[in-house]
Structures are given as C-alpha cells and as structure tokens.
C-alpha cells in the first residue's frame, strides 16, 4: 500500500541562549493510504510538536517529511501554504471556523481558494454536508451551531477538496461525549470511503476509533498498537498501554 506520509528521523530542538530543549527526538513514522492513525500521549509528551511538524506548520530541526511523495521540509513558505491547502485537511480542537461566514461558505473555502467553478463548489458542499449530516445547517453561521455541529462543519471543510491527508488535533476536545461519538463515527465513515486520517488525542475513547495508535512519551515514539478485534477490546488494550505509560512515569518518581 502507498505511504501517504513518510517521516524519516524527524526531530525538533528548541535552542535558547541558556537552555536546550529536545521537544522531539529523532522519530520515524509512516501513514498509508486509507489508514486511520491516532497519536496518543500525555500532555508535554511531544504530540503537538509532532503534529505541527507533520502538518507543515512547523519545521523540523532535522529529518525529512514526505507527504504524497513531496518533500515538505524542502519547501518555501509560499509553496507550503499552497501545499497545505491542496493536500491537507485540518480539524482543530477549537474548530477554527470563520464566524464571519456561513457554514456553506466555511466548507467551500478550500475549493474557493483553489478557484474551482462556483457550480461545482456548491454541488460538492451539498454532497459533503449530507454525508456529515449538516445539510440543513448550511445557511447558518457558526455562532448558531452546537459544538458537535461546528466540528462536523470543520470536518466537512477538511475533506471538501479531497486532501491526501486529514490531520485532526484533539477533534473531540471541546465536545460532550454524545457529540464526540457522533463526530468520530462520521470520521470513521469518511475513512471507510477512502480518507486517510491522522489524529492526535489524549483521550483513549477517541483514540479507539482509529486502526492504529502511536504512543508518544518524553519526545519519542514509545509503542505502537494495532487494532484487531472489536472497538471495546481495542479500548481495553489502549488502557493497558496507558497504565504501562503511567507506570513508567511513576517509576521515574
């Protein structure tokens, strides 16, 4: 299977005059086409750093990242911006919807930026909105939506332009459990239709919707878990790794 994301020995070090902080030790990871991968770890473990690097918002100190065959570490800022909006789709914890625009316009934005024809844009927005169950909300503005509806809108915006990779940063972080389940099921069905998703979370329940989980601890990959059985079994498995992780922390103390 084709590797959509290929990160080779990437690391991130913050250097100030007095201190050196290794946020991420050299790490290698791969995400294949059609995969739903989750990155887990306690806060401060380096998940956000990793996601920022993979989503091209930050540059690694060392190593290279290939997304859909293109080396993003070699790109200039302008190329990167173009690359992000064509190849990547983002779902953020705080939704990041533009409150000045309607749901329809928010979803349409990536296509509009790519100068797709208006008729085509509207058709695709309708289709994606139906898929995510927000068709009736298209003319509303983000302020009128619930958290779950906002995050579905964000998800719709993330997939509207058929990106090669969807990056989700704590997508359920601001949602109640019911909305979270709804969103994750929606993401799962997007994945079933072929979307490649990389999600960062600290919540085991959320992570259990993925097929594969990478655990990060103290700036490096700690463990990798694949899902074989039911979601419930997978969840138990995750909890076990977490205990292991927690134990490791306790040992240090």
């Amino acid at each position, binding site marked *: 299977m084709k590797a959509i994301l290929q990160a080779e020995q990437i690391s991130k070090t913050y250097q100030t005059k007095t201190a050196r902080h290794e946020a991420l030790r050299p790490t290698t990871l791969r995400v294949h086409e059609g995969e739903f991968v989750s990155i887990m770890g306690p806060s401060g473990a380096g998940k956000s750093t990793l996601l920022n690097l993979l989503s091209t*918002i930050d540059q690694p100190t060392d190593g290279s990242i290939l997304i859909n065959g293109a080396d993003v570490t070699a790109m200039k*800022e*302008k190329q990167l*911006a*173009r*690359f*992000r*909006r*064509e190849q*990547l789709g*983002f779902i*953020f914890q705080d939704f*990041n*919807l*533009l*409150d*000045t*625009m309607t749901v329809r*316009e928010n979803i*349409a*934005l*990536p*296509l*509009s*930026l790519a*100068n*797709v024809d*208006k008729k085509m*844009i*509207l058709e695709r927005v309708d289709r994606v909105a139906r898929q995510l169950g927000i068709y009736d909300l298209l003319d509303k*503005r983000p*302020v009128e939506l619930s958290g779950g509806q906002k995050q579905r809108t964000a998800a719709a*915006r993330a997939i509207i332009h058929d990106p090669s990779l969807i990056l989700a940063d704590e997508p359920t972080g601001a949602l109640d459990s019911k909305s979270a389940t709804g969103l994750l099921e929606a993401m799962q069905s997007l994945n079933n239709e072929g979307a490649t998703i990389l999600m960062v979370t600290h919540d085991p329940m959320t992570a259990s919707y993925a097929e594969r989980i990478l655990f990060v601890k103290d700036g490096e990959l700690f463990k990798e878990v694949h899902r074989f059985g039911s979601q419930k079994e997978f969840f138990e498995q995750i909890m076990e790794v977490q205990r292991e992780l927690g134990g490791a922390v306790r040992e240090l103390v």
Partner: protein
Amino acid sequence: MSLSKLAFQNLKNIRQNVMYLGAVTFAILIYYTFLAIRSNEAMLQANELYGKLGTVFTGASVILALFSAIFIWYSSDFFLRRRKKEIGLYALLGLERGQIARLIFLETMGYGVIGLILGIAIGTVASKYFVQLLASVMAMQVDATFTISGASVLQTIGVFLLIFLIIALRSARTIYRFTLIELFKAEQQAESLPKVHPILAVLSVVLIGVGYYLTGQPLMDHFTIVAPLLMLCVILGTFGTMSYFTIFLLRVLSNQARHFKGTNLILHGQLLSRIKSNAVMLSTITVITAVTLTTVGTATSIYYFIDQTVEEQVPYSLSIASKQSEAEQLIAKSDQKIDSRTMVNVKNVDHQMTDLPNPLTFTRYYATYAYEDQPGQFSYVNYSDYVKLAKANGKTVIKEPKQGEAIVLETFKGNDLLKMKIKSPVGVEIKDVHESFRITAATNLPIAQLYEKQRLAFVVNDDTFAKMPEKGFTLTNYQFSDERHDDGLMKQLTQLYGKQADTEMAAYYPVYTMTTATTGLLAFAAGFLGLVFLLATGSIIYFKMLAEAEESKQRFAIIQKIGVDEKEQTGIIRRLVGFVFSLPYVLGLVHSLVAMQVLQKLLNYNIVRPTLLAIVCYTIVYLIYYIVTVRAYRRIVT
C-alpha cells in the same frame, strides 16, 4: 511602582499611538499657529485690513478646537476598547478601580501634555514660515520674525488642557463601568448578519439624487429653504447609503459567481460583518470629506481666479467722473504712465419701475432696479461713445439703434448677458420717466467702474441722447502701465477727491490688494483647516481598522492554517482597508464635485484646474494613510 510611573511607562509605548499623537500635535500646532498669526506684530503693521480679518482666524480656531475635541474624544474611546484586556489584567493583579481610573486619567493627560509641548514648540519655530507663507498668499511684503506669543501659548494650553481634562475624566469614568468579566471576554463575536432593506437602500440613493437635483435648480430664489433642504437630503442620503446601500451591495456581490473565487469569500464575510458598526463612521467621514474638499476646492478656486475677478470688477486702472486735469497732473508726477484713456458721456435718467422686465431680472441681484417705491436710475450712453468704447475693448460694433430703440449693456465684464442661458432681452420694452425704448440688442461693455450697483446701461442714438433733458457728465477711464503697483498716487487721488472719493473715482489697485489679501487669508485658513480635517479623518479610519485588525487576529490565524499564503492575506487586507477608505472618499468626492459645480456656475469660471489641484493634494495624503493602515493591519494579524 507608583501609578504615575506606570502611566509614564505606558506612554513610552508610543509607537502604537504615533498616528494619534501626530494628529493631536498637528491640531494643536495649527490652533496655536492661527492664534499666533492673528497677533503677529509684523502682519498687523503691514496691513491695517489684516487686523479686521483676524476674525477669520478666530472663527477657524473655534472650529478647530471643536473638531479636535470630537476627534480626541473618539480616539480615546478607541484606546480604551483596545486596552480592555490590559486593564483587566491590572484589575486581576489587584489594582483597585480607582487606581486604574487614575492610571488612565494620567495617561490621557500625558498624551495631552506631550501634544501641547510638541505642538507649541513646532508652532513657535514654524510660525515664522507660516507668516511668510500667509504674507505671500496675501501678496504682502512682511519681514516675519521669530516670536513667541505669550497670550497665544496660554490660550492654546488652556483650551487643549480643558479638552484633555474632560476626555480624561470621561475615560476614567468608563473604567468604573467595565466589569471584570467584560474586560476578559473573548474577542467580540462577529455581529449577526445584517439584514438587507432594499427599499431603504434605494431610498437613500434617491435622497442623494434629490439633493443633487436641487443643486441644479435656481438656488437664489428660495435659498433659505432650498439650501438646508438640500443639505438634509444629501446628509440623510449619505447615512442611509452607508447603512443600507452598502449592505445591499455586498449581499448582491455575495450572490455572484465571483463570491466563490479565491479569497473573496473571506473578504466579503469580513466586510459584511463590520459594515453595520462602521456605517456611522463611514457616513461621518464622507460628510467631513465632502465639506473639506468643497471648502478647500472653493478657496483654491477663488484664490486662483483673483486676477480675473478683480479684472472684471475693476476693468480700468482708474475711472473718474470729475477733476480730470488735476487727476492727470497727479498721474504725470507719479511713476505711472497712461497707456490709454477713454472718455464717455453719460446721462442718468430716473425710472419708476420697481421690477425689471423679465429677461433682465437676473441682474436684480446686483440691485440695478429701484428699491421699493423709490425711483431707480438707468444710465444712457450715446452711440458714438459706444462705438469708441467697443473698439477700445475689442468688441464687435452693433449697428445703431433707431428712434425708440436701445441696446442694453451690461456695464461690467463677467456674467455676459449673452452667455447666460436666459431668454434674450431683445424685444423687451423699457420705460423711464420720459419715454420708452424697445431693446434691439444686448452685449456687455465696461463703460466705467464707478457705479457698482448700476449693472445696466442703454445705448441710444446720438440724436435721442442729445434731446434728453438730464445733465450729462463725462466719465474718463485710464489704463496704467503698472496697475498692481502704487507709489502713493492712490493716496493723493483720494485726497484730491476728498469726500467724493467714493463716488467720483474708482481705481484698480485698492480693490486688487484688498481682494488678494482677503482671499489669500481665506485660502490659507481653509487650506490648514482642511489639512487638519484630513489628518483627523485619516487617523479615525486608521484607528477603526486597527481595532478591527485586533479583533480579526484569530480569523487570520485560521486562514493561515488553512493555507492562505502571506501574499493572499496581504491581498485581503489591501482590499478590506481599501474598501473602507474608498467608500467615504468616493462618495465625499462626488458630493463636493456637485457642490463645486454650483460654485462654477456662480463664479462663471472654469474651475477644473484649481479644483483638480486641491483634489490631487487631498488624495495623495489620503493614499499615504491608506498605505500606513494596510501595513499596520498586516503587522497586527500576521
């Protein structure tokens, strides 16, 4: 750290507020300069007229003080809003409200004091050059010296300290009204989508149209009714246009295919979300822009055409009605040479008319006709003299009127009877106490410049003229070699005529100097007032846009994450700021062009060049503000 120290610390963070301080300093500078110029010794000595015209500066400085007060009020409000979070932090850190209020009070006063010191300092140094500039536009010879006018300094300090005091007190009071939660509340959510009121939108534009239409109507007839009505229409229409028509326009734009092109979605959303709260500011700025452009344009135009105006008012270097030989002796002794001399015999005949026949009525504004029940007078000239004068003035000679006929003359240059789009007076009967004449032709020809109010004269054939029983007299008109210069001749002539100087002689030189001085002074005051208005409006838009930028930080962070590159973001900012800058500019410009078109009719000159000059200067400064605003906006959001 004491409060005053903290306030001082905050003041040092001046870079953010440099536009504000700049505008305040400039307002104070001009205010002080106006006061200083008014009391400038050198100017007072050079021209006695100048003392009387000082009222122009008094008036201008009052307007300036009022305008500055509004401007400072508005900007301080903006500062408070922008610093809400900072104030909240102080409160959280345990500063009492009273202390924070005092802090804000001290800061506001601090800016006032800095502005005053800078304004007066620059004003003192620059007033010499201001005086020189004024003297040159007034065509006066003055040796300006470096002076500090104590009274002006005191008055400036007094007035502006009072303004700042009031505003500082108000700002401090506002602090008490903020609750802690309000101070910390997240950035304002986007306002709800403004509703479209197509009827109001159309009505607003129609109102402006009605206002414009009224300017094309004969204003003079009902000036006191039409003028305020016209203003009301245009101002209401402007507010309506900015409030409703812009929303209408943006919504129409949102339904176009272009809406989904590139960054337009973001731009339209941002514009629509702000338009409601910007409407009042945009309308106010439109009106100020219109007033400023019209005032400056008018002043420039009048100043530009001084020579022509004076030439039309006093076409000859000198006109006299008596004592010809004595006058000529005086002229011979002076350094003026007589280039030409024309003489004309005139008889003044009473008439009983209280109203002129219709096509001639337009001249009634020059009070040609009789007042109420008193008989008025017409001047008559014989045909031979007319031919002489017409030839001397390079006019085509109209053929001799028969018995019972007359040619009507407009006796001053300028509003040419034939140029005016009115019914020709040919064929009209006029009647004096003896007989009546049928008018056969109309033209204009200066027969003299003595009778300011008598704009009409009639040419009759020599025979008819000779038979008129009234006593005739001779008017003599001279053209001098250098009529804009005087070596004391005017004074001697005035002495020669004594009490009759007002009625028996009229010279070019005093009118020229007087007109130049008056219009020069007006142009000077209008120019600097306009500049202050311009700087203040520019600063207001600047602040408003920066406040908007602060609120939009989050949005720009989002679009950056989505992959809108820096160039595209700059493009959005340019169009965003451009929209807000151009809307009041374009509408204000159109307003002032319509107003100036009326002026053109009144002046009857082609004022395109001076008007264009004023507009170009205004536009350049405005553009600079636009560029600075775009930069500052970009700095905030990226």
